[in-house]
């Protein structure tokens, strides 16, 4: 016998309610983010009541058990299960605990002036004399063989492809790409980057970490209408972002690993572009404050000659290349090659040699100083 009218609606509504209730631990942060200033007291009571019922029914335990049981089948950034695995994943890398022992030099150095003896296990960055443009750190040579970890959102995933090609020209470098689409620091319900980063640092023991993310975070910012240049207003979202950014960078700091934060290039949508520019400034400031993570400005690398957004650029041979994807946010492989070229130019001393294949990788890339547009 088939269901009809009201019964169909009843089954659907019950199924939806049960499904949302079971998934409430994943849903709660998403719901909370819908409130501009956090959930009101009434909603907070509702949320805690639901959680109490879930705990009473054993659902929280069951959900955690299922996450744990399935975790072995999933790789890398697939699941956001780091909260449930906090003991395993972050146990010995808590602030001030683990890497202080393995890298005593790093602990003894004053903030912003951390160095490492050449040939020691972990290469780090040192302030670069007279360099006011970016992270104030001078790269020392990486030990080889070593792993380079690329983390971030879809921009990092796009960046990892030309970077991997470039690394083929450098003996002993292995690139591990751990990007998560649609993620950022503002959205821990999509992905908990700080915990994930600690896990990856432990799992892969990289000697260099390259970070690129922010387009998903920039959307949360509110810009100061009075300012001539894009500046984020110090609201709840900015504060949250800054706290999470600091924690993220401190994970790199504690590990004592050399790191680069690749800034976002110019965006096609004017509103998003302004927000990304404001976010870049926040990240740059935070990187400079750590003294260990070097910030690489890429804003103008993919811009046209007028400094505005460009979908196409001309390379050195005069051939036009498409540097951006249709969404005007992501960059194409050729656009990625331009950014990698700039990265390798800046980080050259870190690799301690001339990178053989960079010419091949970025052969079609216009030089940052000479971007030409149709």
């Amino acid at each position, binding site marked *: 016998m088939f269901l009809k009218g009201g019964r169909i609606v009843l*089954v659907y509504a019950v199924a939806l309610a049960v499904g949302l209730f079971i998934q409430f631990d*994943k849903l709660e942060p998403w719901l909370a983010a819908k409130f501009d200033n956090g959930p009101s007291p009434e909603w907070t009571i509702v949320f805690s009541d639901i959680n109490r019922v879930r705990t009473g029914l054993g659902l929280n335990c069951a959900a955690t058990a299922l996450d744990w049981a*399935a975790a072995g089948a999933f790789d890398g950034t*697939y699941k956001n299960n780091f909260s449930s695995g906090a003991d395993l994943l972050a146990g010995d890398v808590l602030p001030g605990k683990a890497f202080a022992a393995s890298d005593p030099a790093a602990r003894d150095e004053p903030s912003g002036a951390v160095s490492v003896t050449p040939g020691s296990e972990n290469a780090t960055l040192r302030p670069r004399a007279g360099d006011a443009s970016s992270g104030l750190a001078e790269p020392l040579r990486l030990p080889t063989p070593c792993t380079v970890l690329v983390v971030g959102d879809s921009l990092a995933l796009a960046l990892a492809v030309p970077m991997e090609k470039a690394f083929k020209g450098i003996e002993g470098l292995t690139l591990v790409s751990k990007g998560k689409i*649609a993620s950022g620091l503002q959205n821990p319900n999509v992905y908990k980057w700080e915990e994930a980063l600690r896990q990856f640092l432990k799992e892969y023991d990289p000697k260099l970490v390259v970070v690129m993310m922010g387009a998903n975070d920039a959307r949360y910012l509110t810009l100061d209408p009075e300012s001539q240049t894009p500046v984020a207003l110090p609201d709840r979202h900015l504060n949250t972002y800054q706290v999470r950014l600091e924690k993220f960078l401190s994970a790199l700091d504690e590990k004592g690993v050399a790191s680069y934060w690749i800034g976002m290039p110019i965006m*096609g949508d004017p509103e998003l572009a302004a927000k990304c520019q404001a976010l870049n400034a926040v990240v740059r400031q935070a990187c400079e404050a750590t003294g260990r993570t070097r910030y690489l400005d890429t804003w103008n690398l993919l811009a046209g000659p007028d400094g505005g957004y460009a979908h196409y650029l001309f390379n050195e041979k005069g051939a036009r290349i498409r540097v951006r994807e249709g969404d005007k946010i992501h960059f194409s492989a050729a656009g990625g090659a331009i950014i990698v070229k700039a990265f390798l130019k800046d980080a050259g001393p870190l690799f301690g040699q001339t990178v053989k294949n960079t010419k091949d990788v970025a052969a079609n890339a216009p030089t940052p100083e000479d971007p030409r547009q149709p």
Partner: protein
Amino acid sequence: MLQTSVEFACFFCVVLAVCWTLRPYRGVFKATLLTASYIFYASFHPGFVLLLAAVSLLTYGAARMLSRLDADRPRRWVVAGYLAVVLGNLSFFKYYGLVFDLLGVSLERLGIASPLPDLSLALPVGISFFTFQGIGYVVDVYRGKEKACGSLPDVLLFMAFFPTLLSGPILRAGDFLPQLRSPKPVWEDAQQAFWLIIVGLFKKITLSSYLSEHITRQLFSSPDGFSSLGALVGVFAYSAQIYCDFSGYSDMAQGLAGLLGFKAPDNFHKPYKALNLREFWQGWHISLSTWLRDYLYIPLGGNRCSKGRQIFNLLATMGLGGLWHGASLTFLAWGLLHGLGLAVTHVLAGKFTVPGQGRPALAWKALCWAATFGFVSLAWVFFASPDFSTAWAVLARIASCDSVGAGPGLVLPLMVAGVVGLQALRLNVLATCPEWLRRLPAPAMGVALGVLGAVIVRLGPDGVLPFIYFSF
């Protein structure tokens, strides 16, 4: 508002309740459904709504004009004019970038600046699907197969019906418009509709996302990091992934339409059980393959012509079908490969003495299946790759017999074997709603479905990826 999102699940709950309440009042019911469809479409980009409305109005107007004209010549002009406008619109949004690229490169070689401005257009979601629906309707009216619908809301709803709007199945006016006039729901098996939604979620969220994030996305962006075996399994994994992704979407679309009382056409029927390419296309994206057959292949002459012309018709139909998927020459290559394969299938048909029974027959079938699946998977390499150099790199990795690089592991081959093997062995797993679920009273069924749905979502990635066909 993706169909797999919480927002959509809540939106659909409201629509379902309102629609079933208003079902006895057909005018209001259809108006509600139409409003819901436009709200859904506007959630992607409010500006796209105008485009959908314009194409729908044009479709209605062209069909009405055809119904009022008797002479063949003006009727042809109406159809030609309609096709020029809607296909021009589709081409503008979909292929302008490709033409801009190709023309720009060609002219630059001659030292001439490209005359086309760089527009960097955003592609309206679902445009390929609703454009083809409109063309099918107008051509059917022109051919006399369908009567022009006098009700503007019916045509608007036919073009914008939200369960199928984004990625099909491509509706036929002859199937859908009568359902709007029917006082009773055409689809009555609500349990099966619920089951289709659950199966669709499982295919998309659990299987397709896993395959995408554990091998295929990496393989088709950076193939050099894979061993030969890893790349080979990755290609087969893409065959499984695209099936799970698109058939999962189609199952969900059919289920959602079914809960509203409408029947959306079948879009997949075990394509990987096929023993030749003709069988494959009888089971893969059926609403598109039959559309291409009826509105392109047969008008070109079909197979009632010389062998040479038939081969041309197949290549033209499949080549255009390939380009329909996206503005990239890799899609054209994928379509042409299938056209070539179908041409070879037609030419070789009946040329071999096929063993009738016993082990030789079984071995022959196994050989045919392996050849067909292998060819289809090979063609997917061009479909999945962003450019030809990546496609060649993937194929080169497979051919290199190099064991250095990422391997397939154990879970992936098992998953691929499960998805493909169940079809090849013609096992009807998950096809129909199980009896235990049917027997449950309504509230218990709701609880069971809710638990199933939650477990499926729990096993998927955090942050579900969009459907592959959304970009077409």
